[in-house]
């Protein structure tokens, strides 16, 4: 549920009061529901490259209302800024300033998406400067947008075009309500791998997915979202959480596996269950995690070791089993839940941040190991998410934490789940070794 303050300032007298007092004015975000239109209005495609033309044609083929030129004062659902042929920083001016006049016309919950090329493969300093410039531009624009609108960027690696499956997959994700709480982020498409779904409403049809830590909170939301997207679910949690796990399994029409993932044989047990009961294993979501917060000066062995064991050592061991298995070879997907604490650090969470930083390191290093089987592995780093866990944070601290981002509100477990469902889909097959933040562009960290 949207928090009470957001509900209060979203309409009527609360809206007026907040505006007059200069208080934060979060809006109720437009979140994805099956059957929902992709964007809340026409899409303006800015850019004069061949890639821009091709992209506009693709969007048209999706039966979307596409504009190549802005019509003054017409509300726009999204602005797609194609910047795939920048040679010098000066090349930014034309497309960026033509888009600028349209930013005001962006509808509430509208979208800005840039497509640019990775600085890593630039020919010379000028091109690298222009490409890196998009990064700063995008993050700043995201902070300027209001009323639930977001700006995110797609970065194309060498050899990837605006027509590559995962470039289009990422574009659909960023345009849609699935990315409601993703803001100010750049996602690199590394390869031309991947495939757009036959049915955009069921991108995971026919897939068997395992979600760890699925008994409650974000894990339960992930299970629901993957189920909605067509996957068959195996939900995993420790035996002591079995009652909540059973409820989730029954809700998503999947099977419950009561298993402590830190057990030596957890990976094999997961594979055996998925293959034995459902005939295959395509997707593994490493969501299970624990916190045992303490200032480092007061840290003890038990707190340190349990967090490392569950949050990262277990994932590494399970991945080893997956990589060794003949049943995890057909374009498999792994998505891990990291945390913005692992990026920016958090007081009292040295152990947790070490484990979550570890997850990001593991994801980058595992990506090449999955490449030959057309697999991918990515991480999602949630910011402040409204869960039972964050509900226990003292009121003032919680209120500050939830407003300190561009969308001025906490995210929902479902927002994290949407990002994970996208990265688990074949539409994201060309995205690997990435960390996608779902944090509303939190002010802390990068």
């Amino acid at each position, binding site marked *: 549920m949207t928090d009470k303050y957001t509900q209060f300032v979203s309409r009527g007298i609360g809206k007026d009061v907040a505006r007059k007092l200069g208080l934060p004015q979060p809006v109720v975000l437009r979140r994805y529901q099956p059957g929902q239109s992709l964007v809340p209005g026409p899409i303006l495609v800015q850019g004069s490259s061949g890639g821009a033309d091709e992209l506009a044609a693709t969007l048209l083929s999706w039966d979307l209302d596409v504009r190549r030129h802005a019509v003054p004062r017409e509300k726009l659902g999204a602005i797609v800024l194609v910047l795939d042929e920048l040679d010098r920083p000066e090349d930014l001016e034309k497309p960026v300033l033509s888009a600028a006049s349209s930013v005001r016309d962006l509808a509430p919950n509208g979208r800005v998406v840039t497509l640019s090329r990775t600085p890593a493969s630039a020919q010379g300093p000028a091109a690298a400067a222009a490409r890196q410039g998009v990064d700063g531009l995008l993050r700043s624009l995201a902070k300027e947008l209001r009323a639930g609108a977001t700006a995110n960027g797609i970065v194309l690696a060498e050899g990837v075009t605006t027509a590559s499956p995962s470039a289009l997959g990422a574009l659909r994700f960023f345009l849609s309500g699935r990315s409601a709480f993703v803001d100010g982020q750049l996602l690199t498409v590394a390869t031309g791998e991947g495939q757009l779904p036959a049915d955009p409403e069921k991108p995971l049809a026919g897939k068997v997915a395992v979600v760890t830590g699925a008994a409650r909170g974000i894990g339960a939301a992930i299970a629901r979202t993957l189920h909605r997207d067509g996957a068959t679910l195996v939900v995993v949690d420790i*035996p*002591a*959480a*079995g*009652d909540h*796990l*059973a*409820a989730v*399994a*029954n809700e998503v*029409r*999947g*099977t*419950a596996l*009561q*298993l*402590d993932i830190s*057990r030596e044989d957890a990976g094999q047990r997961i594979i055996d269950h998925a293959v*034995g*009961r*459902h*005939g295959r294993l395509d997707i593994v979501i490493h969501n299970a995690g624990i916190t045992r917060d303490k200032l480092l000066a007061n840290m003890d062995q038990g707190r340190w070791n349990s967090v490392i064991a569950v949050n990262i050592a277990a994932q590494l061991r399970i991945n080893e089993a997956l990589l060794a298995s003949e049943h995890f070879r057909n374009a498999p997907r792994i998505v891990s839940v990291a945390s913005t604490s692992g990026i920016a650090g958090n007081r009292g969470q040295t152990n947790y941040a070490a484990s979550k930083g570890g997850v990001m390191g593991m994801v980058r290093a595992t990506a090449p190991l999955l490449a030959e089987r057309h697999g991918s592995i990515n991480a999602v780093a949630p910011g402040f998410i409204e869960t039972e866990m964050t509900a226990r944070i003292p009121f003032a601290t919680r209120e500050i934490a939830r407003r300190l981002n561009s969308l001025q509100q906490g995210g929902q477990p479902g927002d994290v789940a949407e990002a994970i469902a996208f990265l688990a889909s074949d539409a994201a097959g060309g995205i690997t070794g990435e960390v996608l933040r779902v944090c509303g562009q939190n002010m802390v960290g990068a």
Partner: protein
Amino acid sequence: MSFTGQSATGPDESSTTRSSTPAAGLVRKAVVVGGNRIPFARTGGAYTRSSNQDMLTAALDGLIARFGLQDERIGEVAAGAVLKHSRDFNLTREAVLGSALSAETPAYDLQQACATGLETVLGLANKIKLGQIDSAIAGGVDSASDAPIAVSEGLREVLLDLNRAKSLPQRLQVLSRLRPKDLAPDAPNTGEPRTGLSMGEHQALTTAQWKIAREAQDELAYNSHRNLAAAYDAGFFDDLLTPYRGLNRDSNLRPDTTLEKLATLKPVFGKNLGAEATMTAGNSTPLTDGASTVLLASEEWADAHELPKLAAVVDGEAAAVDFVHGKDGLLMAPAFAVPRLLARNGLTLDDIDLFEIHEAFAGTVLSTLAAWEDEEFGRTRLGLDGALGSIDRSKLNINGSSLASGHPFAATGGRIVASLAKMLHEKGQVDGRPARGLISICAAGGQGVVAILEAL
């Protein structure tokens, strides 16, 4: 007794190769796919506010989640409760309707005292064997916390007559029959209607009759706790149990109990027996709340649903004894049922690899074993040449039993069947044949139901 069975002197040739009932080949197999129960709670504990229907539904939903049975139309569900409210006349069907199963799943209630759970397994397995159904869920539940309390006979008669009275004077006349003592409620108890003795008092007589020592009873109780605790620690129950209302282990389990501690407890049953009073709260089961379920299927159905096949339900037998006239002890019926079942299947006690003898009281298990070891009992009561035989104690209740887990009457059968099926599956083959397990459950009214399972 007309029984003339195999002698205990040795199995005949075929018993080691034949693996099923004499009718095998004519009927198909009924297999145990798996089970689920909620932890058992001592009465007045975690489940004080839970009804039988709540607990049975929770146990069902855990089973459904484990095996992905959501929206599945199961052939039939049978379960029951010993302590049952009259409003729960359709307890099992109501639990099915409250679960994630297809609402088109039929269900019936069954009641055979503490043998209820095992009898649901046997009845449904027979339907599967005969091809009447392909899948089934057997189960049982009991709450001594939420026990039904009836009004007294006096008040009940007055209320019924009042309902039939047609005029005000008639009603007043009926009401005038009411006496203060009629207002006292009639709570259920475990006393036998024909003897007035509680089950514990009955067993105390039997325990004394078979001269079962206090130390032997305490040792059995100690082993039950130790074995159950070890099974939990090894993760044995990870796929047999789903937590409920904050409990994730049986609340009666005392992992740290010792023989010394058990020895300090004062006798609670048979106190009029003087020095022969040996039954304490430690070596008797407490009143318990809980529920259990077992998923049964034909091999074809299990395969089609990509589900495991742990063990086959081979055969079952019921017996009853004349305890009213003191011919046998109240809980001694399994002593007769087991030899009959073994003989029908061409087996002896030596052919059994795992024994699950329900621990109503430590004295019950030990009296039964003593009877089987007694030559005279074997000759005069079982019609054998001598004693039925003795069992290897290392094969008995190896993952604990009712003394440690507790005993919610109708739920005990399901607990034992699911656990034994898993143990047999893990054991696999013994001497080139499937591992065999024997279940023995005694019940009120001088009854007993026993069964044989075989590893798959």
